[in-house]
């Protein structure tokens, strides 16, 4: 086991391959570079050196406004949302044991979006925006729970889950559309942006501070569950004979996944396909051990959303296209590629 490194803290332990550490470090550097680059790009270009000096407090007042107030929050949100969605997807793919599973397919994104749209329409005047993740997570739990229950018939087959997911998301969507059409126009615009997924106009106190606590708690919690995902991925029988409490662990893991995706959607909207793509890329890079897949997925998810958002806001000037459009434009072909790879399996 010389090519592994173990991290121990009391009862918790995580086994990391050396390779994971290298890949992780490289990706982290890439994410940092992408953050700096993305902060500099926009209607007014600012060189990476000036971005860095502004971040460390040496910039001109003008740069400070543009970078610290306008662009950096958006970049930070891209990282947080991308990482959360990717980890939520990684958990689902491990637990449901289906390469096509992702928050988009299992009703989580739809539910969270619906919860948030309801919040926008009925509670924005009376409640603080900080409650929006709670509404989104509640929506995610209710809709994915409903979906799971409807798809249950001596267990949940992946196909039935996908099929009923299509139906349930159509229902939820049409109710959202009904609200949008019936409601006032400014809420309609906001809700539709939300349903497509965009991190346009992110701010420190409203968005970053709302999402950060959730991510800061949920991501480490998930990492500590890594070995349980490894065991789940072997199948129920093997996991049970290895002494795992299969049902209980699965419930905890799914709850973590729903909470992560729900809080990410509350801020970023229904950004699709990141939860599908990132874990696949991670497994290609570091193998399928979940202790490695998880951090690498998180970094890849952050990188994907950073890139998507950068292209979305710079390539179509003067139009600011929602990032969700870009992730769908990359993600749907990726999904088809997966389908092609698994063509003899289904």
């Amino acid at each position, binding site marked *: 086991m010389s090519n592994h490194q173990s991290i121990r803290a009391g009862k918790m332990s995580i086994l990391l391959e050396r390779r994971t550490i290298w890949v992780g470090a490289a990706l982290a550097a890439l994410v940092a570079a992408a953050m700096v680059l993305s902060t500099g790009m926009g209607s007014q270009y600012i060189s990476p050196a000036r971005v860095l000096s502004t971040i460390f407090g040496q910039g001109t007042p003008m740069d400070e406004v543009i970078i610290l107030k306008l662009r950096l929050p958006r970049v930070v949100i891209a990282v947080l949302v991308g990482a959360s969605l990717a980890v939520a997807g990684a958990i689902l793919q491990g637990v449901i044991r289906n390469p*096509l599973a992702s928050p*988009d*397919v299992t009703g989580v994104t739809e539910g969270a979006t619906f919860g948030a749209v309801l919040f926008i329409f009925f509670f924005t005047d009376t409640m603080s925006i900080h409650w929006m993740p709670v509404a989104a997570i509640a929506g995610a739990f209710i809709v994915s729970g409903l979906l799971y229950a*409807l*798809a249950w*018939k001596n267990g949940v*087959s992946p*196909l*039935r889950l*996908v*099929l*009923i*997911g*299509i*139906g*349930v998301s*159509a*229902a939820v*969507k*049409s*109710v959202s*559309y*009904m609200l*949008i*059409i*019936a409601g006032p*126009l400014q809420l*309609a*615009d906001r809700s*539709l*942006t939300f*349903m*497509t*997924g*965009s991190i346009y106009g992110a701010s420190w106190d409203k968005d970053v501070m709302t999402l950060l606590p959730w991510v800061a708690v949920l991501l480490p919690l998930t990492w500590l569950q890594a070995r349980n995902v490894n065991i789940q991925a072997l199948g129920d029988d093997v996991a049970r004979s290895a002494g795992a409490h299969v049902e209980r662990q699965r419930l905890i893991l799914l709850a973590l996944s729903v909470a992560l995706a729900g809080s990410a959607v509350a801020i970023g909207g229904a950004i*699709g396909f990141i939860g599908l793509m990132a874990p696949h890329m991670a497994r290609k890079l570091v193998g399928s051990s979940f202790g490695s897949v998880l951090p690498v997925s998180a970094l890849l998810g952050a990188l994907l959303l950073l890139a998507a958002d950068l292209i979305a806001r710079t390539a*179509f000037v003067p*139009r*600011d*296209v*929602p990032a*969700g*459009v870009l992730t*769908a*434009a990359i*993600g*749907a072909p990726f*999904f*088809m590629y997966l*389908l*092609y790879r698994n*063509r*003899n399996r*289904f």
Partner: protein
Amino acid sequence: MNVIKAVGLIGSTIILACAVIASIALGVTDIPLGTVWDSFIHNNGGTEHLIIRTARVPRALIAASVGASLAVAGAVMQVMTRNPIASPSTLGVNSGAAFFVILASGWLGVSGLQATTWVALIGATVSGGIVFFLGSIGRDGMTPVKITLAGAAMAAFFASLTQGLMLSDGRMFDQVLVWLVGSVAGRELPQLQAVWPYMGAGMAIALLLGRHLNALAMGEDVARGLGQRIAHIKLSSAAAVILLAGASVAVAGPIAFVGIIIPHIVRYLVGTDHRWILPYSAVLGAILLVAADLGSRYIAMPKEVPVGVMTAIIGVPFFVYIARKGRRT
């Protein structure tokens, strides 16, 4: 048996006629049947006659034509793919057509009914083609799982792109939103006349295919053994589906679930003979959409709910039931 089925078909047609008349007479302004009759016999140009001629009649006829087209397209697709939940909406044909229409009208400046219809047909062909290709690769050929997943992915893809186009162009937002959910309100008769030839052609192809679809329903090997030319049947079916679904989207937007529900109800009523399934689907599909449209006027009076929302609300429980019932799903 055939006599009973024929009587049933005539009976359903009469129900359809009643539904259309109700759709003309009822709404925010209820109009007595006598006035409806008068407006056709000797139109005096008054407000009520105007409402009937310019708003209510086109709306009822569009709902009926679109409902019939979508239901027949769904019935053909369900045989072709041997998949109980196939329909123009689940397999991405509708959303592809819708995306192309919005792209063409918003970004490329295409306008006019004929041009829009052609764009919708192209969109339906492109997305339908991709879904069918992806659904049939692999060792086992076309399996329900693969084609469903491919359809879901394409539908999500085009829906996301469409929303992006709308959001990036504020002017389009209002006009397109209602259309995007599927609506038959506020249309005029020329819009229907522009798509009728395509719907008619698609319907004619589908009805002529009935006997061949029966053979196909028994499986490709059996059909081939019975001397059917599979490739011909599949290509003509695909042409029918694209004409019917594309033309429907061009006039009413992507209305979901009509194409799934109706063929199931029809198979329950008349069995597995497609020579009966297709005409029944047409009539019952028309009844469903006319009725849903009528209902959509009453839910949030005096505002109207787009009929696509109504069909989703009716359709989803049914859809979940079918998905749970499916043998191997």
